[in-house]
């Protein structure tokens, strides 16, 4: 376990023009980047897994930069996730929390809100709805969302899929009230 071995990288960008209602002047966008990597702990119980987090930081940085660039450099919400192959355990997916969140904050220049996340253990083709919330204030209701992603041939049993999601514009026809983006105080990451 000296480095991260990546088999595949997938980048998915969505532009949402409407969902049956009036099309907004500027369509919301969201994007996901997925890295398929070897799980160095597959097939056995390892107690001390935390050293792998440091190795994931450069990967996180690379993924966050690619995703931000693919979205044109403008993003107001984010999320992250992991799908662990069947020879791994859910705890291996949890290793992505720190490096994934750190990487997005780095490239976004200091986002305040917690990065919402989801993880699962699954077969190749497993889908994950990666939760999304506003990057500076978790309570912004228009930006509560999720993006469903997956890779047809991953994760194989000894692999993990590590995922970052970024978005701009909230839900396309958001009208369920709550805190609005223009009301953000931006002090505590919540409001």
């Amino acid at each position, binding site marked *: 376990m000296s480095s991260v071995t990546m088999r595949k990288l997938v980048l998915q960008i969505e532009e*949402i023009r409407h*969902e049956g209602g009036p099309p907004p002047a500027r369509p919301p966008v969201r994007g996901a980047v997925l890295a398929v990597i070897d799980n160095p702990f597959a097939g056995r119980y390892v107690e001390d897994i935390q050293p792998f987090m440091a190795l994931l930081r450069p990967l996180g940085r690379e993924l966050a930069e690619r995703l931000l660039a693919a979205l044109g450099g403008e993003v107001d919400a984010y999320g992250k996730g992991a799908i662990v192959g069947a020879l791994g355990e859910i705890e291996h997916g949890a290793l992505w929390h720190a490096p994934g969140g750190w990487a997005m904050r780095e490239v976004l220049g200091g986002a305040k809100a917690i990065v919402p996340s989801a993880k699962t253990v699954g077969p190749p083709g497993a889908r994950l709805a990666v939760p999304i919330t506003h990057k500076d204030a978790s309570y912004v209701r228009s930006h509560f969302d999720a993006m469903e992603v997956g890779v047809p041939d991953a994760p194989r049993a000894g692999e993990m899929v590590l995922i970052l999601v970024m978005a701009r514009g909230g839900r396309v026809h958001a009208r369920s009230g709550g805190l609005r983006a223009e009301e953000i105080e931006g002090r505590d990451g919540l409001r």
Partner: protein
Amino acid sequence: MTAMKIRKLVTIVEETRREMGREISPPTRKAAALAVIENPFAGRYVEDLTPLMEFGEQLGGLLGERAVAALAIPPAAVHSYGKGAIVGERGELEHAAAILHPRLGAPLRRAVEKGAALVPSAKKMGAPGTPLDVPLGHKDAAYVRSHFDAMEVRLHDAPRADEILVAIVVTDSGRPLARVGGLTVDQIEGRDGLR
């Protein structure tokens, strides 16, 4: 003329860096461009499908250009291509045929330069989230064996019953570890679209 209504545009890029433990250098890459459009003929039989053929012409350019742009390569650097459609449950399989076959090819070929070969295609009826394996073949010589492939695409929220999902895929490469012989890229004559 019926105007095409697009609900969603999606691009997906796949980069394969390793396969079977071997490094793939440069990585093989595929890009899919998808559009979710309203099906103007959902729920009724319409004889004349010309509006869908016009949609196909628009989508050939729009999706072809977006897919090539997603790979960030010049059009001439495209290796293989393919197309496909999933028709929502209130439509008809023939609606996919009207979009894909009569007019989509010409603007797609402009987006990839040349394109002497048939554009391989797949179509099906499906619910939101239905996966589609878009078949791939070399754009100038259909018999190039290293480039026979497919890319699976799907969108969790499309096609709804009154929608059609249309996909175009382009690549800058063949399969990651192609080794089953046949016509190779450097043997392409490029005259008849086959060899």
